[in-house]
């Protein structure tokens, strides 16, 4: 059985033919669309390395079938910077050493962008840690990650204020 699906990935419409329904959204991004920034860690929904935004919400792309996401709007790590200008969350991860080996970082950054958009954690470090608990970092860069998310939250809020002023 062949299936044709259509997705918007980082603002670009992509039509894909799937010859096998078993392809996960993660494998579609990495193997078919060559977007290898999204990482495959555990492939079982436990580590968060595969986090992307689907219709604005962060999910584990390893735990969804590509075919179920027909019509979805996907944002991956490749789509967050504007040219050479890093996304505020990316810049904050560099400023605060929110990484060591970097393997979990795309997932951490996508998760942080999702977290800030959800507006549930604010600038409470404990709520940030809880909201980021779906992203494991085996290098243990958690302290820097939390600081980066807090700073990016503040920076994005100030940008929003300037825009609305």
């Amino acid at each position: 059985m062949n299936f044709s699906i259509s997705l918007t990935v980082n603002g670009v419409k992509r039509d894909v033919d799937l010859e096998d329904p078993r392809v996960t959204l993660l494998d579609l991004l990495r193997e078919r669309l060559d977007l290898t920034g999204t990482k495959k860690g555990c492939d079982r929904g436990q580590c968060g390395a595969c986090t992307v935004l689907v219709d604005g919400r962060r999910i584990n792309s390893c735990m969804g079938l590509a075919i179920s996401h027909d019509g979805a709007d996907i944002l991956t790590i490749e789509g967050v910077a504007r040219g050479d200008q890093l996304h505020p969350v990316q810049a904050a991860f560099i400023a605060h050493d929110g990484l060591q080996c970097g393997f979990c970082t795309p997932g951490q950054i996508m998760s942080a962008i999702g977290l800030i958009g959800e507006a549930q954690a604010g600038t409470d470090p404990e709520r940030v840690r809880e909201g980021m608990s779906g992203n494991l970092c085996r290098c243990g860069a958690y302290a820097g990650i939390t600081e980066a998310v807090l700073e990016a939250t503040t920076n994005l809020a100030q940008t929003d204020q300037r825009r609305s002023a």
Partner: protein
Amino acid sequence: MKNFDYIRPTTISDAVAAAAEPGAAYLAAGTNLLDLMKGGVSRPDRLVDVTRLPGLDRIEHLPNGGIRIGALVRNADLAHDVEFARAYPAIAEALLSGASVQLRNAATVGGNLLQLTRCAYFYDTASACNKRQPGAGCDARDGENRLHAVLGWSEACIATHPSDFCVPLVALNAVVEIEGRSGRREIALDALHRLPGDAPERENALEPGDLIVALSLPAEAHGFSAHARYLKVRERTSYAFAVVSVAAALRFEDGAIREARLALGGVAAKPWRAAEAEEMLTGCRPDSEAFRIAARAALAGAKPSGDNAFKIELAERIIVRALTSAAAGTPARIAALPASPFSTVSGALHDA
């Protein structure tokens, strides 16, 4: 993963007809099913994707004062629905204590009810498991079983039901709405999940093709909103299944408990309603002695199924703590660490 046919019906009746065939399974977000399929534990021949079925993603306030939650409402959306969280704070807290945000953003109400045990021997296809392969035996009995059931287990199976969401739901008399081949019916959530007995492979009361379309709570359920908590002991503070969890909800009249609701998670193959303990609390003043007596009653029938005798005392203690916290009043905002016994919210009793 074994290959499968994939279909995405657009009506509930088409979905029921397609899923009634042998070897078929419903797929919603897939956060549990795909995991099981990747491990070769579930091997469906056909997946019936229900995520595009119309009308199942709504939260409706019913004329009788109850609430009806569509089966495709996402866990995160339900927990953050302001009106819902205010009326049913213990349910919102339970939802937010489960899994991670990524999983809660995807996972559905119906799927949460039907998730399978996380018993490692069920997941390991090289181990004997009566639930996965009837008659094969149970390697958990002589294995690593400190997190297994202490209530309602059988020689055939000592697995626990992993849901947090279901624990306050069963305490508040939630009802499951099911569409099947012979039409629509309702059953109490308490009657959905089965204890293992000698047929642990039969998880629940659903028949082939049965689709959970909604969950509802009766009007009286929000009468507990001022005094409701969910507490969950985990082996790490976040993103872990319960070792033991408790939903406690109280309604007061003239300073005495008029009605109590109590249910346990992580202790049995189903969310465990402690009805006798509830009755013992009725009419009592909310003091630690009454809570301790009720906690002992809730665990009176418990026995270890392995290296897990500690769970019995742990459950008693967490019941006392949850009742104490509920009596002190529902916190104005859900704690930064939802359901954590380490939270510093009002009424927390750290030495129970």
